[in-house]
């Protein structure tokens, strides 16, 4: 090509190659197939859809008006629900901190301790709070203690995972500076790293507490204390007007805890 000829630029530009376009369509086809498979495998009774709106309207009618006379009876379990969430979260914080340092690559002692830390994280997180509740009801017997243990067991992994990530992302500079003063390992963690991850620790703790208030409201289903017991009993007795009162009460508590959690997290700097 001669140097003084006007340079020609392409007038066609495609974001994807034909191969990439084909791959995109194949992914969509795969998703459609997976959906169709799920529907057919679940053997859904489509006739139930026909009168679903009638059933829903009927349920709403049976719920209304809420039986406010039931409210005094559920105040104590409601408070108990919040206590379960709070105590469970507090216990989780205590255990999550050492676990986080164990599960963070830059603070764990070696590959083995890291694997142990990660294993504990996964074990805690992969089991639902209600399942933990079932397990601890078997251990401690029914009651709020099982609920507290269940909330703590599930929250430890949640808190430790997020704090471990914060530890791994902590600025290396201050850590280096504290190391160079001749501080011991524990002091390096305490002065060099902990202040850096404290906002994350406080923020996730408050957020987890808020989640735990919601989760504690169903722990009563498996006998692990709290308002869930009253909800479960009311449903089983078809006392729909009581069910509505319980649901409204839970709604108010959840809104309040969420607002408190958002407010506290907003103030952390």
């Amino acid at each position, binding site marked *: 090509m001669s140097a003084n000829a006007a340079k020609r630029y392409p007038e066609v530009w495609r974001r994807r190659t034909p191969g990439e376009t084909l791959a995109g369509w194949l992914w969509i086809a795969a998703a459609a197939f997976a959906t169709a498979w799920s529907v057919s495998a679940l053997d859904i009774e489509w006739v139930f859809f026909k009168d679903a709106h009638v059933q829903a309207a009927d349920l709403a009618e049976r719920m209304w008006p809420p039986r406010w006379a039931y409210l005094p009876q559920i105040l104590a379990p409601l408070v108990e629900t919040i206590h379960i969430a709070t105590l469970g979260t507090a216990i989780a914080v205590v255990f999550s901190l050492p676990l986080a340092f164990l599960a963070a690559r830059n603070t764990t002692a070696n590959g083995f301790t890291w694997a142990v830390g990660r294993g504990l994280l996964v074990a805690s997180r992969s089991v639902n709070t209600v399942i933990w509740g079932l397990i601890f009801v078997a251990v401690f017997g029914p009651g709020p203690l099982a609920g507290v243990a269940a909330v703590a067991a599930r929250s430890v992994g949640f808190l430790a995972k997020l704090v471990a990530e914060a530890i791994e992302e902590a*600025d290396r*500079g*201050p850590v*280096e*500076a*504290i*190391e*160079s*003063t*001749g*501080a*011991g390992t*524990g*002091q390096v963690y*305490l*002065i*060099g790293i902990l*202040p*850096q991850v*404290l*906002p994350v620790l406080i923020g996730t703790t408050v957020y987890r507490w808020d989640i735990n208030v919601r989760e504690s409201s169903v722990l009563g289903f498996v006998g692990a204390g709290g308002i869930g017991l009253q909800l479960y009993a009311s449903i089983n007795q078809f006392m729909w007007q009581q069910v509505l009162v319980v649901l409204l009460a839970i709604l108010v508590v959840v809104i309040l805890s969420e607002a408190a959690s958002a407010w506290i997290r907003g103030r952390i700097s």
Partner: protein
Amino acid sequence: MAAAPAGAKPPLLAIDKLTKVYPGGARALDAVSFTIERPEVIAVIGSSGAGKSTLIRCINRLVEPTSGSVRLGATEIVGLPPAQLRQARRRIGMIFQEFNLVDRLTVMENLLSGRLGSVGFLASFLRRYPPRDIANAFAMLDRVGLAGLQDSRADALSGGQRQRVGIGRALMQDPDILLVDEPTASLDPKTARQIMRLIGSLAAERERPALVNIHDVALAQGFSSRILGLKAGRLVFDGPSAELTPAVLTEIYGAEDWSRTIRPAGEDEEGA
């Protein structure tokens, strides 16, 4: 704060054939040897990647040297087991380019963190430092020009103020030597001069040597009495600041017009 016993003792710092090869195979330091015999400010100059940071970090073993020897007074640092290494690190104060303060802690907590090597874990958790340390910290705050700022959070300070805290923290250790890594690279030219002057005068007051990595050749020459030149991990110059000639700079950095970089001898700027 007793002065080091004078006499024909071993040098304050003796580096012998110090070599660092990083896992990738890069030879950051190649048989670097020098000694520091008296308390003075020694500037280490060289291009980026010449090994200045590695040299300083190998002395307190934030970076593990591959071979060679680092003697701080009578103590051989290379090969020290962890507990003794921590003991040795107490005697080495370090000042950083990015200040490396713990941002969310107060100025006082940052200053007192220089004492961590001498207090236990529980004491540091409860922030219960010995009364003498606290009095020294207040005096230090005054000395570095930050009196009254003890309760400010470190991240609320300006760059120059933060570096003053960094200097104070290093001196709180009452170190035998100061290692200073690019103390002015994050600062404006005027603040940079003030910081270099502060480091120089504190080192002189306490009769301690300071080994200062620095990019700015004019600052190096203005505030140090001796200069070490590193090139690709090798020590290519070791001499009085006054002997830094264009020929030497070409040896260290490569060919360039150096005539405007070097201050003509005698034009020494002091004051303030």
